[in-house]
């Protein structure tokens, strides 16, 4: 079920209606039923039911066993078994092809005449989200952070809470527990706020993201016609397409959850005002970063292995340099995992993994040098113009890495980058710019919409725009909501060409 579809709209309206009319103690059961419908919608068969049951049962049983044997060796063994089952299933369903392809390439390298056929595995929507959510639940139980959930149906709701299945955010059991199973009254203010957020998300998706997609898709699928400068513009625009698509989906999700009465953690914090890639990743897909930090990066860094490496490196290279080596090694491992999480192919591992690591690595080692040079040259780094330069640099670096993300393969990405560098053809834009999927009026709409997005983002530096808006009088507030709704209806991209299957983060 797509987030932007009539089916989903009807589904949400019915769910929310029943949710508020039935006795409050049954509210969570309605959420569970809706979530299961969402999870298995169009994908209900023995295979998918078994998939879901494996994750649910292994988490449920491991959780209870860990809780019973807290602080013993047995708890550790159960935890590891539980995680291995969930990760094993995730790898089997999503990464089989990555391994088969790698093996094929190795065979090819050694001239072995054998090729594995790639396989198609039918996995449930949200598998990358609920797998990690369940793992964090088990680890938290093991760490004694909270009590285990003994009701398997309640645990099933935590695993499958429908708003987050398509694009996140990652939730933590202790943050959401009280709200998820609690009673919620119908609240006008909350519903207005939720609707406003949903509209804003739809505006980002339908007016901006899908429109940009027209241009980017045309360029990326016709590289013989649209090359050189076209690929540069497509790469710059794709970053915006991805951002409006992903953060727009999150807005819709958060809005729905807000109406239901369940607060979700924010996943974005105006990322394109970040001065470095390091800072950017603190503001982009925040809940994934936080998950990886708490469950992979910190434990890895604090492990005996890394600590003894730390001691050795400090002896060898001195304190300052020595302590960085285990840090970079842990970061590299984490970024490869982030890349793999994004998809089972090498272009994701390079684009959203390795390249990000390389950027952050160089930012870290070059920073003291840059500060020194700027001091010598007398450049003030604490002025708007310098910050603007840093923000543009961040945007450009991220856009560069996203060429790999967007291209279907590393080789295609390399071809595109080569075309960007070698071919200098700005004139071609004058001739055929409006042939690449978007005509002049469409571009004008796009520019205005991006302008509005930019203004809203600047306003949100001061805090929630919706809060600022709720202080205004009711006429102004509803005028804004109506303008948004009408602009989505008039300027939104619909129709056969705009197949809504463009939810970039849904594929993970």
């Amino acid at each position, binding site marked *: 079920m797509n987030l932007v579809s009539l089916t989903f709209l009807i589904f949400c309206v019915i769910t929310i209606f029943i949710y508020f009319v039935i006795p409050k103690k049954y509210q969570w059961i309605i959420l569970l039923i809706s979530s299961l419908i969402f999870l298995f919608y169009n994908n209900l068969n023995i295979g998918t039911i078994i998939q879901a049951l494996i994750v649910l049962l292994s988490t449920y049983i491991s959780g209870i066993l860990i809780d019973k044997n807290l602080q013993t060796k047995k708890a550790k063994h159960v935890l590891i078994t539980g995680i291995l089952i969930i990760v094993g299933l995730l790898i089997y369903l999503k990464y089989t092809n990555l391994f088969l392809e790698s093996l094929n390439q190795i065979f090819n390298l050694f001239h072995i005449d054998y090729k594995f056929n790639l396989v198609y595995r039918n996995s449930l929507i949200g598998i990358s989200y609920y797998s990690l959510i369940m793992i964090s639940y088990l680890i938290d139980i093991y760490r004694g*952070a909270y009590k285990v959930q003994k009701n398997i149906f309640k645990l099933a709701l935590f695993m499958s809470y429908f708003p987050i299945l398509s694009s996140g955010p990652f939730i933590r059991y202790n943050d959401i527990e009280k709200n998820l199973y609690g009673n919620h009254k119908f609240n006008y203010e909350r519903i207005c706020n939720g609707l406003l957020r949903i509209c804003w998300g739809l505006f980002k998706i339908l007016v901006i993201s899908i429109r940009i997609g027209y241009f980017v898709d045309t360029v990326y699928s016709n590289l013989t016609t649209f090359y050189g400068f076209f690929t540069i513009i497509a790469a710059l625009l794709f970053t915006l397409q991805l951002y409006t698509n992903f953060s727009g989906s999150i807005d819709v999700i958060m809005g729905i959850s807000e109406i239901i009465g369940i607060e979700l953690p924010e996943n974005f914090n105006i990322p394109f005002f970040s001065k470095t890639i390091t800072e950017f990743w603190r503001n982009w897909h925040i809940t994934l970063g936080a998950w990886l930090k*708490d469950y992979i990066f910190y*434990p890895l860094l*604090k492990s005996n292995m890394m600590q003894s490496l730390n001691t050795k490196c400090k002896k060898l290279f001195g304190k300052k340099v020595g302590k960085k080596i285990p840090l970079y090694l842990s970061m590299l491992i984490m970024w490869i995992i982030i890349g793999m999480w994004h998809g089972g192919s090498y272009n994701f591992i390079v684009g959203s993994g390795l390249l990000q690591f390389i950027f952050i690595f160089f930012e870290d080692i070059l920073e003291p040098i840059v500060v020194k040079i700027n001091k010598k040259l007398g450049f003030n780094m604490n002025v708007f113009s310098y910050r603007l330069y840093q923000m543009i640099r961040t945007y450009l670096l991220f856009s560069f890495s996203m060429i790999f993300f967007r291209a279907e393969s590393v080789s295609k990405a390399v071809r595109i980058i080569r075309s960007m560098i070698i071919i200098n053809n700005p004139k071609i834009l004058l001739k055929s710019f409006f042939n690449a999927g978007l005509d002049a009026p469409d571009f004008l709409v796009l520019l205005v919409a991006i302008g509005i997005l930019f203004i809203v983002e600047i306003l949100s530096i001061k805090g929630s725009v919706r809060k600022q808006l709720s202080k205004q009088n009711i006429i102004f507030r509803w005028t804004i909501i109506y303008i948004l709704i009408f602009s989505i209806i008039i300027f939104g991209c619909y129709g056969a060409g705009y197949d809504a299957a463009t939810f970039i983060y849904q594929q993970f």
Partner: protein
Amino acid sequence: MNKEEIYERLNNVFRDVFDDESIVVTEATNSSDIEDWDSLEHINLIVAVEQEFGMKFNMNEVTTMKNVGDMVNIIISRINN
């Protein structure tokens, strides 16, 4: 060991980890008060504190402590045990 002693020893650990002799920590000091105290340096700090006081933080404490006050409370509870 009383609280003052703990803070005194923590000051030395912080100064050593962040290479800044001017650091003085209080109950309310958190990662936004010390420029280099980011997620990358957090574990270095934690391990240095563990070595100083001969105790271990568990991962839940590592990820949930909000400020130096939280850290000191954990240290006190460990020492008393």
